[in-house]
C-alpha cells in the first residue's frame, strides 16, 4: 500500500474536517471503550492475567529462535511447510509461488495485518490472481479500494450509508432499488456474495493471532467465522504470520486469549477461536491438502533487545487505538500506513524508517492512556520518546523547534539571566493583557492562538514577588 505517513499533518487536517468520519469515530468510543471497561470489571484477576501475558511474551522474545524452530519442527511433523522470509519481497515471492503451484485463479483471505504490511493483495492482483477478502470490514474496504483504518475493525471509519453505496456500486447482480438501510441487510448481502467465493477459491490465506510451539498449531480468532471457511474449504492454506506471534504452549495461548478479546472488543472470547494444526489427516472430515506457514521478519528481529523491544509483545488488540485521544480525533488513515494509533507510532518508524514516519511519535500528548489499557503492559509513551530522541540526534526535529528549545535551555541554565529576561517579557505581557486577561493573537504564538486564546500572565513572576515578600515589601 502507498505510504502517506510523511503528509501526516495534511492527512489529519482532512480527517478533522470529515464529518462522516467524526461520527463513525464517536461510535467507536462508546462501543469499544465502554465494553472493555465492563469486561475488565467482571474479571477481578484481569491485571494479574496481564502480568502473566506480558511474562509469557517476554520469555518468548528472549528465546525466540528456539521457539520458532520448535514450531517449525512440529509443523513439519504434521505434514506442513514453513517458509522463513526476511522481508516483504521474499514473503510475496513465496506466496505467489505457492499460489501458482496450486494453479490458483482466486484466493480467499481472512483479515491479516501482515498481509497489509507486505501488500500481498496488490502483488497477487498484479500477477493475475484475484484475492477476495472475507472479513466483512476488510471486504468493504477492498470494494472501496482503500486501506484499513483500524487493526481490528478495518472499516470503522465508514457509516452504513457509505457501505450501502459501495455495495450498490459493486454488486451489480442485485436489483438497484433493494433496501440496504439496515446493517442486517448489508451483512446478508455480503454473505450471499462471499458464499460462492469460498467454494471457488483455490487457496485460502489467513493471518495468525498466535503460533503454538509445542503443537505447531496456529490460533486464529474472528467474530464472523470467515477464517474457518477460508482455511478449510480451499485445497491450500497459507498462514501468514510475523515471527513474534509464537507462544510456547497451548496453556500460554489460553492465557493470552483471556486478555485479547476483553481488551479488543470487551468480549470474554471472540465468537470463533480456532486452533488448526497441519493439513487434513486421513479421516478428517475437511481441511486443506497443503498447509504452509510463511514466517515474516520484516525488520522485527532488528528491534529485539533494543529500545523498541517491548513493542514486539503487542498482540494487536487495538485497545491503544480505541482509547487514544489522537486516534479518536483523526482515525487511522491519517497515520498513512498499516499500523495507526499508539502501537503504530512506535512500530511504524521501526518498519518503514523514522524519516518517513517522523510525525508519528510526536503526534501524541503523552497522556499515557494507551499504556494504562495495554494488556501486554507495553510502555508506549516511553518508546515514542525514544523515537523523539533519535529524531533529535538525527536532526529531523524542525529547525524552529530546535532553536526555541536551545534558547529556553540556555536561559533555564542561567537562573539570574532567566529572572531578568522572563521578568521583562512577563511584565510587558501582563500589562498588555491586564484588562482582558487574554490574547486572541500574539506574534510567534500562532500555534497556540489558532484554536484558543492565550491567557495573559498575572504580570510579575512568582520569584520576584517572593523576593519582595522576603524583603518585607508588599
Amino acid at each position, binding site marked *: 500500500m502507498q505510504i502517506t505517513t510523511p503528509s501526516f499533518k495534511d492527512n489529519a487536517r482532512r480527517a478533522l474536517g470529515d464529518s462522516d468520519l467524526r461520527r463513525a469515530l464517536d461510535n467507536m468510543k462508546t462501543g469499544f471503550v465502554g465494553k472493555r471497561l465492563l469486561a475488565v470489571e467482571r474479571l477481578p484477576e484481569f491485571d494479574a492475567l496481564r502480568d502473566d501475558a506480558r511474562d509469557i511474551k517476554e520469555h518468548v522474545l528472549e528465546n525466540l529462535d528456539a521457539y520458532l524452530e520448535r514450531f517449525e519442527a512440529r509443523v513439519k511433523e504434521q505434514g506442513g511447510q514453513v517458509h522463513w522470509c526476511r522481508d516483504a519481497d521474499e514473503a510475496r515471492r513465496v506466496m505467489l509461488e505457492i499460489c501458482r503451484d496450486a494453479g490458483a485463479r482466486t484466493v480467499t483471505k481472512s483479515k491479516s495485518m501482515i498481509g497489509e504490511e507486505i501488500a500481498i493483495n496488490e502483488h497477487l492482483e498484479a500477477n493475475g490472481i484475484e484475492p477476495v477478502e472475507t472479513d466483512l470490514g476488510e471486504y468493504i474496504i477492498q470494494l472501496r479500494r482503500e486501506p484499513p483504518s483500524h487493526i481490528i475493525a478495518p472499516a470503522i471509519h465508514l457509516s452504513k450509508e457509505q457501505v450501502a453505496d459501495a455495495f450498490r456500486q459493486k454488486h451489480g447482480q442485485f436489483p438497484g432499488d433493494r433496501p440496504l438501510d439496515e446493517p442486517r441487510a448489508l451483512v446478508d448481502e455480503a454473505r450471499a456474495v462471499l458464499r460462492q467465493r469460498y467454494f471457488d477459491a483455490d487457496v485460502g490465506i489467513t493471518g495468525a493471532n498466535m503460533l503454538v510451539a509445542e503443537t505447531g498449531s496456529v490460533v486464529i480468532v474472528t467474530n464472523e467465522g470467515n477464517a474457518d471457511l477460508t482455511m478449510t474449504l480451499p485445497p491450500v492454506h497459507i498462514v501468514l504470520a510475523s515471527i513474534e506471534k509464537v507462544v510456547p504452549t497451548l496453556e500460554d495461548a489460553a492465557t493470552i486469549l483471556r486478555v485479547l478479546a476483553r481488551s479488543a472488543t470487551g468480549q470474554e472470547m471472540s465468537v470463533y477461536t480456532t486452533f488448526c494444526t497441519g493439513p487434513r489427516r486421513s479421516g478428517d472430515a475437511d481441511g486443506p491438502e497443503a498447509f504452509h506457514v510463511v514466517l515474516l521478519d520484516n525488520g522485527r528481529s532488528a528491534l529485539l533487545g533494543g529500545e523498541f523491544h517491548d513493542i514486539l509483545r503487542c498482540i494487536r488488540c487495538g485497545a491503544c487505538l480505541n482509547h487514544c485521544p489522537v486516534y479518536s480525533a483523526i482515525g487511522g488513515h491519517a497515520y498513512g500506513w498499516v499500523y495507526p494509533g499508539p502501537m503504530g507510532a512506535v512500530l511504524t518508524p521501526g518498519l518503514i524508517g523514522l524519516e518517513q514516519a517522523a510525525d508519528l511519535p510526536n*503526534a501524541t*500528548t503523552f497522556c499515557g492512556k494507551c499504556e494504562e489499557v495495554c494488556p501486554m503492559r507495553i510502555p508506549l509513551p516511553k518508546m515514542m520518546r525514544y523515537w523523539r530522541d533519535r529524531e533529535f540526534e538525527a536532526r529531523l526535529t524542525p529547525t524552529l523547534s530546535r532553536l526555541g528549545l536551545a534558547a529556553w535551555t540556555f536561559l533555564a541554565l542561567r537562573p539570574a539571566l532567566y529572572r531578568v529576561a522572563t521578568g521583562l517579557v512577563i511584565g510587558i505581557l501582563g500589562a498588555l493583557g491586564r484588562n482582558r486577561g487574554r490574547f486572541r493573537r500574539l506574534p510567534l504564538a500562532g500555534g497556540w492562538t489558532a484554536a484558543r*486564546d492565550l491567557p495573559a500572565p*498575572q504580570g510579575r513572576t512568582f520569584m520576584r514577588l517572593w523576593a519582595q515578600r522576603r524583603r518585607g515589601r508588599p
Partner: protein
Amino acid sequence: MTAKALDVGLFVTCLVDLMRPVVGFAAVKLLEDAGCAVSVPPGQTCCGQPAYNSGDRGSARRIARQVIAACEGIEHVVVPSGSCAGMIKVHYPELFADEPETAARAEALARRTHELVSFLAGALEGAGIDAEYRGAVTYHDACSGLRELAIKEQPRALLRRVRGLELKESREAETCCGFGGTFCVKYPDISESIVDLKVDDAIASGADTLLSGDLGCLLNIAGRLKRRASPMRVRHVAEVLAGMTDGPAIAEGRGG
C-alpha cells in the same frame, strides 16, 4: 500537628512562576497553614520537560542536574504540578541510568519530591484547610498526575472540605485535554479537536468552575473556553483550597 515544622522547599514550576504566581502563593499558604516551614530554592527555573519530551536528553540532563543541586538538603520538595512532579519523581532517575552517582542523587530527590495536592492530603492529612468557595466545581484529572503519580481521590477529598463548594464529576474527567506540552502548538488542529471534547464535557457536568492540578492543562482549557465565549471559570485547585480566589480566574481580566 508535629512539634517540629516540616521543612518544605517549593519547586514552583516555570508556568506558575511566569504565568500565575498566585498558585505559588496559594501553595505556600496551604503548606504553612498545615505547619510547614516553606522555602523557595533560589536556583530553580524549569524541570526540563520541554527538552526531555523533545528528544533533547542532553539539555534535559543539564537542567535536571541543576534542579537536583538546587534541592539538595531540603527535606521535602513540593511541586504544584503533576507533570513536573512526575518529571522529577519518575523520569529523573531514568535520565541518569548510565551515571550511578547522579542516579542515586536523582532517586533520593525523587523520594523526597511530592505533588502538592497529594502531599497536602497524604503526609499532611488535610491539616489547616479552611476555605470557602461558592460554586459548582468539576475536576479535570491531568494525565501525568493521574497516571504517573496516582492522583485521583486526593484533590476531591480536599475539595469536599471547602465550604459552599459543590463537586460535579465530568464523565470524561480522566480524558486528556489535548495540551501535551509542545503537542498543542505542533498539532494545533488535533489539539483543538481534543480540547473541544474536554470543554463540552466540562460544560455538560453543570459546573461553573473547572479545577485541576496542572497549569499547562488549565491554560489550554481556559484558552479554549474563552475562545468559545464560555463563562466557565478555570483555576488551579490550590487557589480554591487556599481560599485565594478574589483575583480574576485564568484568562479573565481585571476589566471584566
